[in-house]
């Protein structure tokens, strides 16, 4: 076969042309990439070099292993193939390019090495199939939030061209082969096909050259186009995964908020560049699902535009927040973290929302309902606007007085959370748990009026100053109290105590959710079910317990211990669908634009399970949101909401 680099094309040797094209491609590519890097260099610093081992692990699992893609199995498999085909083709491309640019080198072309050629061809065919799957999915069975854009079409076509030109080249090579070089697999098959179609072996070398050049030019063109398209994710995603957020609470570093380019951190902006616009975040988002203004994908897209359209030196002071991203989009987020959990490139939607909320709060621009809640929190330590002195009113009809952890030492300090204390519908559940633990002789105490809101949701609405205030007071109070471990009924309290209260010194004070405590008690026989409850139930994983902190099994162990039959909802565990109350949304007034509420979607999902009587919850906000949703959807007769504590009491009571 002729050597494409040496062959003379109208007097010009191949490698000269190749050099020219390569330089053009690299320049165009390099210019845009350099520009991106300079823009990021002007953003806020953020150190993401910690825990290198863990980071490498993430890259292995999620880039090489493509793990998150498999949440949607069919396209996951297809993309896995396309990804590895790309890796292989990229390798052979650069090999060919190098060899083509420096023909004096005594190395073969990759397709002159038998086993490499075979691998490339086989994977190439698989990749073509995968490409068809992808194209059909995008253009015929279009999933929500996946666009049938020109960019996508061009990419698909370019990839197809890359694959097909390579395969065709292999076919022509086979066609031109003498008997001695026996046909190899795919190439051989294609060679036979071309012969069948009447292509003369005499033309095969020329056609081979043509295919080779088409292939190289396409890839060089693709390379140049890359940093201008959503396919930048090819380059950016290994970095976005390597520099992913490793901390469970998903908060950005301390700041006064961001609305201009230089106020965001480089990693927050990088999300825009790494995004492949796959739409998984939108498909996971409870607010988006209900017609709220929020689209996580659009948010990332706006960030991408922010990076792309501004001069590399500084932002022009354009109102990114206000003009491009509207405040109502930002306030619609429940911080459920489904978006971040599903994103294959580990983009960081929530930190972006947090930064912008901080900015809005610093300007006093908060949505209705929030000022009242925040003022109450600052003044009374609870969002209900009730006196601190009423925090322990729920204990009055208990029949016994729980220990006061401020005055005597207890093994477990029970931090209730404001909903469990003040909400009239929840106080009976709190008493339920109190009685159960008391009867099981668990050594626990509460801090009565000294308890204040932990600040988790205060932080999530962007009021860092108020969070600091609450954290200071709570930490000081807890340092004075006498306890070994702390457990709480509220996953939001759990999350912030565990992840955002460094002074609590978790080594000395294990922080637990009450289901973890109950599970342990059942495991050790300190709690025994007097009878197995004959119910069929389903369980809702709270966002701050499950996705944020990985606690999925403890509540299920408790359910098992009390004998109920558990039917899982389609969206369970990691995929659990938020009740809509997080991120301070339970304090805000309804957006009014949504056609339904996340809680309604969730109770419908629960009610669709055959024979399920109870929707079991382990978060007070879930209880409130779902109870309301049962009313507004008219499903009250079909399903009841139960806190796990109620079922435990029923099972354990003699």
């Amino acid at each position: 076969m002729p050597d494409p680099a040496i062959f003379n094309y109208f007097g010009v040797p191949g490698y000269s042309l190749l050099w020219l094209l390569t330089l053009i491609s690299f320049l165009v590519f390099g210019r845009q990439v350099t520009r991106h890097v300079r823009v990021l260099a002007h953003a806020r610093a953020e150190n993401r070099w910690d825990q290198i081992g863990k980071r490498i692990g993430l890259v292995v699992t999620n880039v090489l292993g493509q793990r998150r893609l498999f949440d949607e199995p069919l396209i996951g498999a297809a993309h896995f193939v396309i990804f590895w085909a790309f890796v292989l083709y990229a390798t052979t491309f650069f090999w060919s390019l190098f060899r083509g640019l420096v023909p004096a080198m005594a190395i073969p072309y990759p397709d002159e090495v038998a086993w490499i050629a075979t691998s490339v061809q086989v994977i190439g065919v698989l990749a073509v199939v995968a490409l068809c799957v992808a194209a059909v999915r995008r253009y015929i069975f279009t999933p929500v939030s996946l666009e049938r854009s020109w960019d996508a079409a061009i990419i698909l076509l370019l990839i197809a061209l890359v694959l097909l030109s390579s395969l065709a080249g292999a076919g022509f090579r086979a066609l031109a082969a003498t008997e001695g070089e026996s046909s190899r697999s795919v190439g051989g098959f294609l060679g036979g096909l071309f012969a069948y179609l009447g292509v003369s072996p005499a033309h095969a070398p020329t056609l081979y050259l043509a295919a080779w050049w088409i292939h190289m030019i396409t890839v060089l063109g693709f390379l140049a186009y890359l940093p201008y398209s959503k396919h930048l994710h090819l380059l950016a995603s290994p970095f976005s995964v390597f520099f992913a957020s490793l901390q469970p609470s998903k908060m950005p570093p301390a700041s006064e908020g961001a609305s201009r380019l230089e106020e965001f951190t480089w990693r927050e902006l990088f999300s825009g560049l790494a995004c492949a616009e796959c739409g998984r975040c939108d498909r996971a988002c409870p607010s988006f699902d209900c017609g709220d203004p929020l689209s996580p994908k659009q948010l990332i897209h706006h960030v991408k535009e922010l990076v792309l359209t501004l001069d590399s030196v500084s932002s022009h002071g354009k109102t990114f927040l206000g003009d491009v991203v509207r405040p109502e989009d930002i306030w619609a987020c429940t911080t459920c973290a489904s978006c971040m959990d599903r994103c294959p490139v580990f983009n960081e939607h929530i930190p972006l929302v947090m930064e912008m909320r901080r900015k809005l709060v610093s300007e006093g621009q908060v949505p209705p309902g929030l000022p009242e809640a925040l003022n109450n929190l600052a003044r009374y330590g609870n969002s209900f606007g009730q006196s601190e002195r009423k925090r322990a009113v729920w204990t009055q009809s208990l029949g016994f007085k729980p220990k006061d952890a401020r005055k005597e030492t207890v093994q477990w300090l029970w931090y209730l959370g404001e909903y469990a204390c003040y909400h009239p519908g929840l106080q009976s559940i709190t008493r339920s748990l109190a009685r159960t633990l008391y009867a099981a002789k668990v050594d626990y105490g509460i801090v009565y009026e000294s308890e204040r809101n932990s600040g988790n949701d205060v932080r999530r609405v962007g009021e860092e100053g108020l969070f600091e205030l609450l954290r200071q007071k709570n930490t000081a109070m807890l340092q004075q109290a006498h306890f070994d471990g702390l457990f709480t009924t509220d996953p939001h309290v759990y999350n912030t105590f565990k992840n955002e209260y460094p002074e609590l010194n978790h080594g000395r004070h294990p922080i637990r959710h009450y289901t973890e405590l109950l599970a342990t008690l059942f495991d050790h026989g300190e709690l025994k079910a007097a009878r197995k409850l004959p119910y069929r139930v389903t369980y809702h994983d709270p966002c701050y317990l499950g996705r944020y902190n990985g606690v999925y099994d403890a509540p299920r162990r408790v359910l098992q211990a009390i004998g109920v039959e558990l039917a899982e909802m389609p969206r369970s565990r990691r995929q659990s669908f938020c009740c809509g109350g997080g991120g301070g949304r339970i304090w805000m007034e309804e957006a009014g634009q949504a056609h339904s509420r996340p809680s309604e979607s969730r109770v419908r999902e629960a009610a669709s399970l055959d024979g399920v009587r109870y929707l079991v919850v382990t978060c007070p906000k879930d209880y409130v949101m779902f109870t309301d949703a049962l009313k507004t959807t008219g499903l009250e007769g079909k399903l009841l909401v139960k806190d796990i504590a109620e079922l435990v009491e029923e099972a354990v009571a003699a």
Partner: protein
Amino acid sequence: MKIIVLLKMVPDVVEELEVAADGKTLDSEFLRLIANELDAQALEEALLLKEKYTGTVTVVSLDAPEVDDALFTALAKGADRAIKITGGDGALGTRAGAYLLAQALSTIQGLLPADLILTGAQAIDDLDGLTAPLISHLLRLPQLGIVTKVSVDTAAGVATVLREFPGGVRGEYEIKLPAVLGIQAAEKPPRYVPVAKVRAAMKSQVIHSVPAPMMADGGVALLQVAAMAKPEVTEHAQMLRGSPEEIADQLCEILAARGLV
């Protein structure tokens, strides 16, 4: 435009109020004070006017527990100056308080003349008078109360205000400046100011403490409370209990008995 806001601290009724041992005053053990709700509206209106017409806003309060919080919050919201009158008797009524304020306003340099003096239309502890009319009388300024909208013609020195009447009716008046206005509601709900800003104000800004002027006369509370107690609960509704359906039936019986159903 120069605007003065008079802000006072009143008992926070979120807490249970108890009567002290003397049977006449509030027990102070768990008592908390909060800025009078309508004074907060007055402050918001003042800040809105400042934004619209440019000028300065000075907040003046009598010293009381937790008044510093309220004044720093006002500064964080955008007030230019905060003045606290110290040394007065803590148990002043509204009337005596108004006398002190009027005297202080007149003696503190640079406060008067102001274009507008805003304060809440009334407060929950106004047993012996309302601040706005009292101040207006003492400073010999015109006054309108229950105001919900203010616009100013700075050139003509006149403000146009809307004042609430029953039945949702509002009256439009023109009032010559300088004037005193008792604010019922600002044109927007009081703005939120983040805790970080208030804390920053506490570090970077100052509340000017001014000792209470000597009162020649009139600074005396003209009424005396003989006794104070929680109101007797004489009547209470008959409570209906049961499931929603059961209660609905009971209610229908009640309504039917009166020919309403």
